[in-house]
């Protein structure tokens, strides 16, 4: 048998919480009509970065694929040629896929990447209705072309060879020419 307190006082106390809260500012977010920025280091969708002239940073080395604990990344490299250059140096990533049905957004691939080609954005809307649409291709992952960037393939614009790019001279030249705003190597 419930006590008198339980029968009379407890419901009033309970509704009291409800009543008090009605006058507080709500924390509910009207997602997806309204979006909040994430924490700045939130692990979201990946991005393949570009040099300031638009060349790709990825060299197709597969170290990200090697590091991935979920086996979510597939990379196949290929040779740049004089006529068709996608990245500075000899090698570029011809095929680049991340399977977001597998990816656990741990960021180990980002740590493995020797060229800082692969970084993560804060984009978290990674739901869809088919398997195909969740395997992101290189074209889906590449950073958008900013002003001053040119869609590869194209020749080296910011130096004579890949050394100029890797040593930072390319970025310096791009800033000097005013084609891009100063920033760490064109990462966006």
């Amino acid at each position: 048998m419930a006590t008198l307190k339980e029968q009379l006082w407890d419901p009033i106390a309970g509704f009291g919480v409800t009543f008090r809260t009605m006058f507080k500012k709500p924390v509910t977010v009207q997602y997806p009509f309204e979006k909040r920025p994430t924490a700045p280091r939130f692990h979201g969708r990946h991005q393949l970065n570009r040099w300031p002239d638009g060349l790709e940073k990825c060299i197709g080395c597969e170290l990200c694929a090697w590091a991935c604990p979920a086996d979510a990344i597939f990379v196949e490299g290929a040779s740049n040629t004089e006529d068709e250059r996608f990245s500075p140096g000899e090698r570029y990533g011809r095929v680049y896929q991340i399977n977001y049905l597998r990816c656990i957004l741990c960021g180990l691939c980002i740590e493995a990447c020797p060229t800082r080609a692969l970084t993560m954005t804060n984009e978290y809307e990674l739901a869809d209705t088919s398997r195909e649409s969740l395997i992101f291709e290189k074209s889906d992952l590449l950073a958008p072309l900013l002003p001053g960037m040119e869609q590869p393939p194209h020749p080296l614009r910011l130096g004579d060879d890949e050394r100029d790019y890797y040593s930072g001279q390319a970025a310096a030249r791009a800033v000097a020419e005013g084609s891009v705003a100063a920033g760490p190597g064109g990462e966006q």
Partner: protein
Amino acid sequence: MTVTKGNEPGTELADQNLVTLTVDDVEVSVPEGTLVIRAAELIGVEIPRFCDHPLLAPVGACRQCLVDVPDAGNGRGFPKPQASCTLPVSPGMVVKTQVTSPVADKAQHGIMEFLLVNHPLDCPMCDKGGECPLQNQAMSHGQGETRFTEKKRTYPKPLAISSQILLDRERCILCARCTRFSEQIAGDPFIAMAERGALQQVAIYENEPFSSYFSGNTIQICPVGALTSSSYRFRSRPFDLVSTPAVAEHDACGAAIRVDHRRGKVVRRLSGDDPEVNEEWISDKDRFAFTYARQADRLTRPLVRDPETGALEPASWPAAFLAAARGLAAAAATSGVGVVTGGRLTTEDAYAYAKLARTVLGTNDIDFRARPQSAEEAEFLAHAVAGSGLGVTYRDLEEATKVVLVGLEPEDEAATIFLRLRKAWRTNGTQVVAVASHATRALEKVGGQLVRTIPGDEAKALGEAGLAPGTIVLLGERLARVEGAFTTALAAASRSGARLAWVPRRAGDRGAVEAGCLPNLLPGGRPVADAEARADLAAAWGVASLPGEPGRSTDDILAAALAGEIGALLVAGVEVDDLADPQAALDAVDAAGFVVSLEVRASAVTERADVVLPVAAVAEKAGSFVNWEGRRRPFEAVIPVPHALPDTRVLAGIAEAAGHDLGFRTPEAAAAELAEVGVWDGARAPKPEVVPGRAPRTDPSEVVLDTWRRLIDDGRGQDGDRHYQATARPSVALLSSATARAFGVREGEEIVLRTDRGAVAVPAGIADIADGVVWTPANSNGLSLLGILGAAYGAVVTVERSVPADEADALSGPPHPHVPTEEDEQ
């Protein structure tokens, strides 16, 4: 890393002079002359190393294998660490490796630091990354942190030392494995160490590419990523690859290979390690020619000719089986069926054809020889080869006092034999004698002598080769064009006590002989003419009787089809340009009432066939080859392709649709049945008795054609890799200086070789070749001699000096149907 395999198998350790020494406080006894690095391996200590390779002479170039030797066996120690890969053991020696000696460990760390001073940090770019001895040993025996802050030495990269092999000099650690391999094993010293000190580098001679049929092995043994191949460059990482042991399918050597595939696509092939066969080396053809099965002309669906439109229409497997079975059964009941199988089949598939021909089609008209052939050859195969088991082996070649090559150019036609002959000559002083029109580069590389002959005169010349007990005679398939050659060789061998071996050119040839794909032979070496052998096989197969009439050879089958005597043809993997008379063969296929073709890729035969059944390429099925030694070389499927059935399965389907049971459906079951049927232990077929012929007589305007296929040529099995194809040697027509003078030809000038079929223009080369003979490759650079001239080994061709203007266009002959595709399929 390579691990030593004791010493020669069969030799008892006790027989040899054993030396006892102490390595890391463990006493070990090893044969005299063993190197310390190997003695350490025997007690399970791996000393880091780069230049050391058990099949190459020690050089001590990298210094990574330093060990401490406190006692050299004479009570005194070496004052400084010693390279264990050049130091032979001595009794009472005390060796301390990095495991027990801080001195050795520090020395090894020091050397590693030196090696890394100029080594670039481009592992992410490098093909070797992930399977690199330098990476691995830098982890296990290196500092971890570099103290080198200066600028590293760099070179422009990569340097293409041939169209297939690329050299990144800055990655090279100067171990000299590649140069030692080229000099010692292949005998092609086109790369060498140049410069000194920090600038030392591997280099090629000016204007001379690294032209070697074995160049790919240097990539495999390079302990860093300094040597890479154009076709595999940047394609994959070791952890992506699934490796399958397999057997090379391009020649009859049976070389062990390793096939690496990624996502259903073969990306590279490496040499396997089989000390009894190919040791650790394979030819570039075995290594790089694997893209043929994924060309655009690959057949993927059964095709049946529509009786109304006359076009080949895709059909279901059951419908195609039924169509093939109906047509073949109808012809078998009336005029008969001829079966031409080509030399690329696995033994199991060949057995399925042999059984189908005898039991379902009721004929002995079956022949695997899709090339010029002779009745004498068939008799020789029945008498001396079929069912004879393991005969002359690679080891026998190595130990022979003398090896005589007749109708065989080892480097082009049997690359593994070439390497063994070179090893035999270098280590054992084996004398190599070639009965041929001229001494090839290969013959020089095996230190061989020439017994000069004109094509057709081999039988006579064999007498001059000096056969004796301990001599091995290798007979090539070209001798089918030489009357009496096999007869003479058999007689000469039995007289002198020499041993004979038949070296065919294709992987499936010997297996086809064993499986009974010959008009005079049943499986297991049973002669068709022998009623007892037939009864034995009929009992094994559970049939009442087998056809007793000897069948027709390939040429006769085609001639009979042309004449309307044979109603239907069953053709497997035959390229018409390989046949003695390609035009007649096409006419015969056209004339035959019904043609069934089992093929991997579209061909001139599939275009004309009534039923086309796509079959699996070698990498897609299990099976076995029998190599020239008679050694069975089984292999598993590398990549399963659902639509690609092995020939065995397809033939079983046809047999079932015709109301018969072949008795097996899979290669495994076929192999089991063939083993159960076993080899014939009754009387062997009689020897061939053919009176030796002579070389053809020639007019002053004519010469005798000497020809064979080069290792790298236009064969369809080599389609699809342009880097590899670019390493083919240029065509040349070799003439003696007297012959050249007689025709007024100078070196380098184009000459025209002509028959009544057509003509080819080839630049002339002057060589020390028999007078009245021209040598030119059989199928190189778009010039298929059989296809254009209809001329094979020993044929007579006319020579003209220059090109009459009005014929200049017509000269190259019909456009070659299989010009290599421009791009290798990505």
